[in-house]
């Protein structure tokens, strides 16, 4: 879960000055351009290759496709089961995301806004888990899930995903809830709102920017999860996208189909890339949001 474990904040980050004006020295531009090429080229190559024939992929890796093989995409989606994996990912990640956001925000709010004995302890119990390698838990986790009869099931994956995404969510939202003004909540209490109503009707809407940012992080982390499904989700029918792609590329016995695999890679890449371009302002805001203490 690289992203889940990513730092939420740089310590100092409120932009206070516009960037300096353009510089005559061409070196920075060359360097920046080079890295952009290094970054984008393999991705573009995958997209272009997904329209080529197997022959073209094997013999002329740098060429453009002679004709657009849209059939690759169809094959990947149906014959190679990418469609099914995609759907599985949607179900599991969707379920886990909703549950994570609900439980995580509840915990973060309760810990941030209520004083009671053990508050600190509970906070640390959650947050410390962010620093533990998942590998340590892997073996016992497998047996826990197996004994609960949840191995290879959607609910099993959803619960485990949630359990491993909640700590970061709590960590992130905790500071967010702390910054919210208490006047509005107090007014709501005076109006006779219950604690639950204050949370759902008043505080949650106020925390929307934070929820949005952490939601995106959680989505990316869960969508790209590999180790947990690899161990806990052995049924090929319920493979999630990352698992299915790995199986397609590594497994033996499948009919060789490079163009289909590239199409599968592209299908896996495009939604997140498009979502990122659309939401990138929020993501960057999210990365620096923790700094707004």
């Amino acid at each position, binding site marked *: 879960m690289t992203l889940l474990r990513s730092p939420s904040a740089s310590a100092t980050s409120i932009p206070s000055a516009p960037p300096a004006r353009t510089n005559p020295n061409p070196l920075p531009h060359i360097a920046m351009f080079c890295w952009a090429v290094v970054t984008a080229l393999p991705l573009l190559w995958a997209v272009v290759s997904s329209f080529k024939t197997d022959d073209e992929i094997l013999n002329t890796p740098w060429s453009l496709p002679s004709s657009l093989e849209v059939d690759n995409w169809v094959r990947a989606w149906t014959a190679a089961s990418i469609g099914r994996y995609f759907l599985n990912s949607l179900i599991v990640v969707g379920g886990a995301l909703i549950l994570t956001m609900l439980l995580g925000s509840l915990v973060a709010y309760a810990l941030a806004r209520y004083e009671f004995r053990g508050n600190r302890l509970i906070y640390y119990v959650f947050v410390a888990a962010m620093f533990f390698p998942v590998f340590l838990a892997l073996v016992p986790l497998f047996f826990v899930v197996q004994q609960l009869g949840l191995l290879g099931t959607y609910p099993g994956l959803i619960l485990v995903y949630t359990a491993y995404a909640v700590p970061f969510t709590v960590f992130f939202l905790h500071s967010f809830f702390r910054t919210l003004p208490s006047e509005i909540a107090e007014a709501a209490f005076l109006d006779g709102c219950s604690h639950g109503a204050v949370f759902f009707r008043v505080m949650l809407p106020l925390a929307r920017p934070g929820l949005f940012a952490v939601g995106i992080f959680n989505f990316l982390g869960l969508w790209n999860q590999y180790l947990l499904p690899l161990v806990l989700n*052995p049924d090929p029918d319920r493979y999630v996208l990352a698992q299915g792609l*790995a*199986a397609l590329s590594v497994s033996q016995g499948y009919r060789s189909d490079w163009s289909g695999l590239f199409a599968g890679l592209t299908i896996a890449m495009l939604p997140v890339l498009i979502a990122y371009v659309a939401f990138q302002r929020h993501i960057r805001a999210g990365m620096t949001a923790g700094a707004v203490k």
Partner: protein
Amino acid sequence: MNPESQLRPYPTRRTLLRTAVTAAVAVPALAGCVTSSSDSPSAVSEGAEKTADNPLGVKADAPLEVVVFKGGYGDDYAVQAEKAYTGKYPQAKVDHKGLQKVGEAMQPRFVAGTPPDVVDNTGAGRLDIATLVGASQVNDLADLLDAPSLDQPGKKVRDTLLPGVVEDGTFAGRTVALNFTYTVWGVWYSKSFFASRGWTFPTSWAEMLTLSAEIRKAGVAPWTYQGKYPEYINDPLLSMAAKAGGTDLIKAVDNLQPGAWKQEGLVQAATAFAELAGRGFLMSGSEALSHTEAQAAWCQRKAAFIPCGSWLESEQKGVAPAGFDMVMGAVPALGPGKLPVSAVQAASSESFLVPAKAKNAAGGKEYLRLLFSKGSATAFAKANSTLPSVAGATDGLTLSSGLGSVRDAVTAAGTDTFTYRFRTWYAPLAKAVDDATGELVNKRLSPADWSTRIQKAADALAKDSTITKYER
């Protein structure tokens, strides 16, 4: 259940084939519940009278429940055999289940004592057969094996099977499983390509080296291999060693005997492959190619030979150009050895068993008699381009070049088929062998060091009291 089968992330076709064979004589790790409630196969209903037409004493009206692994071969072949069953016993109601996770669905039923009548215990998550045997949960198939074949007059079922099939299903002296498919390993080449260049497949290693030199002169790489998975190049090496040292060599290896890996046959075979690499007969870059990449390069005639099992043809459908005509040959021999040149490494898989507590065990066995009939096996071969484990099932069929060559190799081998068991018994040793062979064919390890190094791993394993040992 066996964690290996249950969890291997990508139950690779190969491991499926391989592990299914020695099935799970391998580590009975997650055995658990199946072991409970072992004793008497009590509630089994008495069958009807045994007659020539009904040698197993099937009660004509007893219902039959068949559970089949629905994997790469589908389950249509099993459904066909069920139709044959109802054709013979019209009063019997047949219940069919095609599953992908046989073990998960069947384990509770074994524990509860209400298993189906036939189980195709195959695929990721299959039940550990050693555990089932230990808990007396499986029926002895001796009477089935001794029953007359359905469509081969004068032959017992036992005699209709390819060599090794009965042995593959025998545990502690009892045959409890029958494997339906048959896999053979060898060295592949394109018949048309070889014909156009005037090359002929060699039978001795000396000829192989001469031909390889000629091939290279023609601007083609003599060999490629699936370098990302060094086990592929291990197969011809170990086959060559087996031909030199015979069954004794194989048994010494499998039984972890001291010095087993220093046997002459093994060292000679390692030396042969080191020479293959040393003389530059391996296509450059092979060492980093995945199985599909290496096989594609071979299909593009960039290399002449490639080692693989008999599934290669179906894996290369769509990649092999028209008229490529791939065929498999037996691994060339170093010289006159204990096994003939025609001997092949072979193993059966797709494991059918009849539970001890099956309500209709006689019907289950009768079903297997129908399934393992020549007619049923022939239909399977036609549909799946895969060799069934029934001898002669493909006789008279027009087979694809690959499958035809596999059948010919099996025919030529006769009873001289062999298989190593250490790979399924001792996975860590298999890894040590793979790693060492990878280094050997990349010229980073000498044949002597190769055998020393593997011997060390085998000795360590033999000494390790935490690992369950097997004997053959």
